[in-house]
Structures are given as C-alpha cells and as structure tokens.
C-alpha cells in the first residue's frame, strides 16, 4: 500500500484554505465566464479572434457557448438591427441568472455610424448592459480588458440569492 510521503503538519500545512461563501462563489463565477456567441457584424470577427489561439480567452475561463442556457455573459458584438431586437431580448431572457452583458463596439453602444431607421441606437434600449467597450471595432485586447473588468465587478458584488436581478424596466 502506498504511503503518504507528505507530512502535512510540517510540509506547508494541511491542504485547507479558509474563505467565505461570497468569495468562493464569486471566484467560481468570475473565472468561468462562459460567453454567448453573439457576433452580429465585424466586431464578431474580433470576438472570434479573442477566442482563438493568439489571444486565447480560455486562459480566463471564458469559453464561447452556442446556447444562452449555458452562458453567463452575452457579448453583443456588432450592429443590432431593429428586426433583430426581439431576438436579442429573447436570448437574454433565456440566459440563467446571474447574467451579464458586454456591449462591444460603437454600434452596440450607441448605434455608431448607422444613424438610420433600421438600427437600434444602442443595445441598452433593449437589455441592461454592464460594460461598454469603445472602438470600431475594439481590438481583442480591449475585449480581454473588458472581461477582466467584468470579473472584478463580479467579485465586488455579493454572491447570495439576494443579488438584485437586472431589469431595464
């Protein structure tokens, strides 16, 4: 029978870390932010580049999921048209709470250069947004920094069920 070679009382102590529920729940949430693939336009290309090997979002635990039911954060990357607006609302409603939204790029933030009849002037008219990333299109580094800020925001909040659900209205 194999013998334990580690003497826990002397070599580095017992493998136990003490923490609070809030901290460990937020640690789990912030470091496994599964993102909903929401590439609507050219920002989607930058979002894909962020997920690919050069920038490698997996390092942050951010793995793109094709289903809203498995996703924690919706990265709205691109121009949201009025025809599509009801679908983004439906997908947002299908995400399980807690959920976060990153609005990526000028078009998603404010409608951007598309000051026209067919473009929603900012996704925050439809769903509540946690983080606005400027740029046209933002570089993958911007998106990485945005995800890190979102992680920080998650860690700053209380983790319990009392977390207030975000509603636009």
């Amino acid at each position: 029978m194999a013998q334990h070679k580690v003497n826990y009382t002397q070599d580095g102590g017992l493998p136990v870390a003490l923490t609070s529920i809030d901290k460990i729940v937020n640690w789990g949430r912030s470091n496994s932010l599964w993102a909903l693939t929401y590439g609507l336009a050219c920002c989607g290309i930058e979002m894909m580049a962020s997920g690919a090997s050069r920038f490698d979002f997996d390092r942050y635990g951010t793995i793109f999921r094709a289903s809203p039911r498995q996703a924690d954060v919706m990265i709205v990357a691109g121009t949201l048209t009025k025809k599509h607006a009801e679908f983004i609302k439906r997908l947002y409603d299908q995400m399980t709470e807690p959920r976060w939204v990153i609005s990526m790029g000028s078009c998603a933030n404010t409608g951007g250069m598309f000051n026209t009849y067919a473009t929603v002037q900012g996704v925050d008219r439809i769903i509540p947004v946690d983080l606005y990333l400027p740029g046209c299109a933002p570089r993958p580094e911007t998106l990485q920094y945005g995800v890190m800020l979102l992680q920080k925001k998650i860690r700053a909040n209380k983790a319990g069920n009392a977390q207030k659900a975000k509603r636009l209205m």
Partner: protein
Amino acid sequence: MRTYTPKDDVQAKSYYTDRYYVSPQVPKSEVETDAVFAADLEAIKAKFEVKEVFIQVEQMVVYINANDIYGVLELMRDELEYTQLSEMSAIDWLAKDNTFEIFYQMLSMNKRKRIRVKYFIKNGQAVDSVEKLFRSADWSEREMFDMFGIEANGHPFMKRILMPYDWQGFPLLKTYPLEGDEFASWYEVDKIYGKEARDIIGPELRDTARVDRYDSQRFARLGHEVPKGTEITGDEPKNEQAYQEDGGVFLIKKFDKESSKIIDDPQR
C-alpha cells in the same frame, strides 16, 4: 487650391441643397449605330409599342408601356437570347410627376449585350410580375415592394423581404427620413415592451457626438467610478484602475514583475 468654405456647421447641413437634383445626362446615341441592338429593337417593335429608345454607355434603353412588360421580357428571353435578368427595381419620381420608373436590366451572355427595359407607373398602381419568366425577379419584386410599396400582380409571395413583416412605411421613398419616422423610432420598444414603456425607455439619442460626462445612470466612467445615479459635480477623485484587486484573488497568484525573471537573451 480649393476655395475656402466655412466648415463649422457642415455637420448640420444636408449634403444637397436641391433634393431632386438631376445630374447632367451621359451622351446618348442612335440605335442604328449598333447592328445587334438595331436587330433587337426591330424584333421588339414588330410586336410591342416602343415609346423611346437610345443607346447610353453601350447599353440600349427601351421605354415601353407598363402592360407589355411580361410580353417584352418573354420575347427577349425566348427569341433574342437575353437570358438573364440582372436586376430590377424602381426609381422614385413622386415629387416630380407622381410616378415611379421601373427598370429591368437584361443581359445576354451569347451576344455580350445589355438592354435596360423601362416604363412608368402612377403612384399606387401595381406592376405585372415577371417571376414566372425569371426566378431572380422573385426577391427583386419583393424588395421593390418592401422599399417602395409597389406591388407585383401574380407574384407567389408578395411580402416584405428586408424589413420585418409588421413594418410600416417604405424606406427607400425620397419622402422617408433617413433616421426613420415616428413608427420606426419606437419600433423595437413597442414590439418588445409595449407602448406604455416609451416614457421609461425614452426617445432615441440620435446625436452621435453627444457625450454626457456627468451621466452616472448609464456610464460608470472608468477611473472616476461613483455609485449608480449619483449626482456628479465634476471633481470626483481619480482612482487608479488595476486589472486585479490589490491583494490578489482567492487561489490566484498576482503576477509580480519584480520577482519574475525576464529572459532577454535570444540565443538562450
């Protein structure tokens, strides 16, 4: 050197002072100058009335009666070898004489020639569908209906193609504002949340240059964070923005530049 014009109000002005400005025409030539087009025109003239015809930029432009369009295109496809309908749509002349100009761009791969067939219809009048002749007319006629409101009789599925089915208004009309009318500006709010939500969500912000640096409802303002909804005076303290919390995160070591070793020898 270009003459100086003041640029301070250039964003506020429209591009064209005359909205219905018609640019000078490219020179037109007689049909007889091209033997292939002359033979085609003879074949069309034998069966249908031709109102006006000329060659412009090596393409023949033929004006016909609105009722003859199906017959003319059928003749051109079956006998004159114009086998492709490249595109078709309408031109809005409502402000000039309350008409639409409908055009059909035809291509013959064998003859290597293009003919544009045109006619005018009054506002509110429908056109005859050519979807039975050319499958490409299916979506083109739907798009024409979507953008101008011109219906095509005999089309199998006369519905909008680009805009949503419940859209009101025809966006490519010259009277339609680029930023949308009342219906367009509230479309997504009305559809998702209902009309009673208009007061809560508020009108669209169409001024793209507008930045309210004291807006704490919508923006957290990196480096100057305050709780949401705080009245901002402008002298909030600057707080340093770090990637991570100072003490590090549970189970994650903070990267320490001082204790790390940088290998700068390329030959290592």
